[in-house]
């Protein structure tokens, strides 16, 4: 197995193949970062919208819950196809990369909303009482005392969620986004062995995920003071 790998390597790791893979890494990262960035934003928005201490209009809270419950229960692949066909039906010809990103955003928003919610709910209600009687607004309370106390609960699953979204971008290969998985399939079809084609991108995915996990750990170190770490 290793013999064939070594024999094949010079033919595989050529300049053009590397440029091809680099483009693919770029697209994977674009989907992952845009998807997760917007997902974090919308996720926080959804968690805030469904928080009883913040939003007093019940139907608004129900809408947020509905959004979360729907989108976290649809597989990413189905979500991708659904977004893809919906835009087709609307008559837009949206770039496949955008379709992929939208699907990731929908999924990430709903998953991250749950992480934020768990964090917000982990903070004792008496903190809200104390802030409320001093006339701090709900959003001030969230920003100044609730979120800072919730980070230890939010961040560990959030890091896992971010890694999950990077992995989910691989499904965009099914709508022909030139990302890592699509690139590997092309290389495989052009005659390179599955071992080297998929093996290489597995390593790349691993490195990206590992980097994100490290990033998560360092954010945790910065946001969670020493004496309150789990």
């Amino acid at each position: 197995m290793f013999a064939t790998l070594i024999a094949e390597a010079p033919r595989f790791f050529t300049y053009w193949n590397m440029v091809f893979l680099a483009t693919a890494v770029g697209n994977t990262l674009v989907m992952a970062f845009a998807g997760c960035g917007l997902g974090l934003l919308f996720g926080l928005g959804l968690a805030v919208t469904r928080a009883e201490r913040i939003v007093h209009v019940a139907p608004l809270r129900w809408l947020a819950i509905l959004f979360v419950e729907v989108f976290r229960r649809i597989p990413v692949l189905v979500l991708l196809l659904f977004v893809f066909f919906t835009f087709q039906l609307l008559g837009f010809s949206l770039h496949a990369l955008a379709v992929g990103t939208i699907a990731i955003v929908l999924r990430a928003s709903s998953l991250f909303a749950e992480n934020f919610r768990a964090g917000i709910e982990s903070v004792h209600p008496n903190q809200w009482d104390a802030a409320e009687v001093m006339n701090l607004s709900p959003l001030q309370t969230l920003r100044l005392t609730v979120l800072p106390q919730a980070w230890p609960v939010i961040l560990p699953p959030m890091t896992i969620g971010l890694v999950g979204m990077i992995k989910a971008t691989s499904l965009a290969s099914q709508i022909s986004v030139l990302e890592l998985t699509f690139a590997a399939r092309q290389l495989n079809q052009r005659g390179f062995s599955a071992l080297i084609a998929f093996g290489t991108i597995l390593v790349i995915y691993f490195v990206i995920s590992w980097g994100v996990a490290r990033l998560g750990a360092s954010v945790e170190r910065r946001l969670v003071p020493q004496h309150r770490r789990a």
Partner: protein
Amino acid sequence: MFLSIDGLSAGYGGTRVLEDVSFSLERGEIVSLIGPSGSGKSTVLRCLVGLVPPEAGRIALDGSAVDYTSRAAVRGVRDRLAIVFQQYNLFQNMTALDNVAIAPLKVKGWPKAEVMADAKRLLDTVGLGDKHGAYPDQLSGGQQQRVAIARALALKPDVLLLDEITSALDPELVTEVLDTIRGLAANGMTMLVVSHEMAFVREVSSRVLFMDRGRVIETGPPAELFDAPRTERARDFVTKILRH
């Protein structure tokens, strides 16, 4: 009357816990609420600051009734009444100093230098001059309680509502906190105090209300209520408390 409560009823999710509660406070007066656990003392205070919506009755400040369904009115009340909770409820992610300074800075928008100087002075007055940078979980119960008092005072309230501020404390710590309150009383602060410290209640308050099962059963000057309670239930309660 400065603060008057008239026929107040309230509850949690359908179950009434306050029934027709009435009393009033003059400016500079200290009134104490006593009564067995679960009698509704905390709920009275929570109603006053708008954490529990009144279901019936009238609460008036300076003679004008407060509409607790109006957000603006509730904000106005909270500007003037400050509460110190039974469980302190200090912000766990903030130092003692930040706990005291946060509302003046973020709600009132007072100038930072002034607020910080004031917050430090308040912490010094409650005897925490060396604890400005400590987090709540690094402070003893008595120290946390005093930070909570300083935090309430930082907003320069007209009335201070104190909820069993010594009940969770060891006897040695009680003295520290009560000394703080005595200091406030001497300065003419209007206070509504829930307390089980009968000696203290007797010393500082001009009137005592005895509550049981959501109602005010008996009212009177401390000497009268403690030494010659008129009702059976108050007598029971007072003898039990005094035996401790």
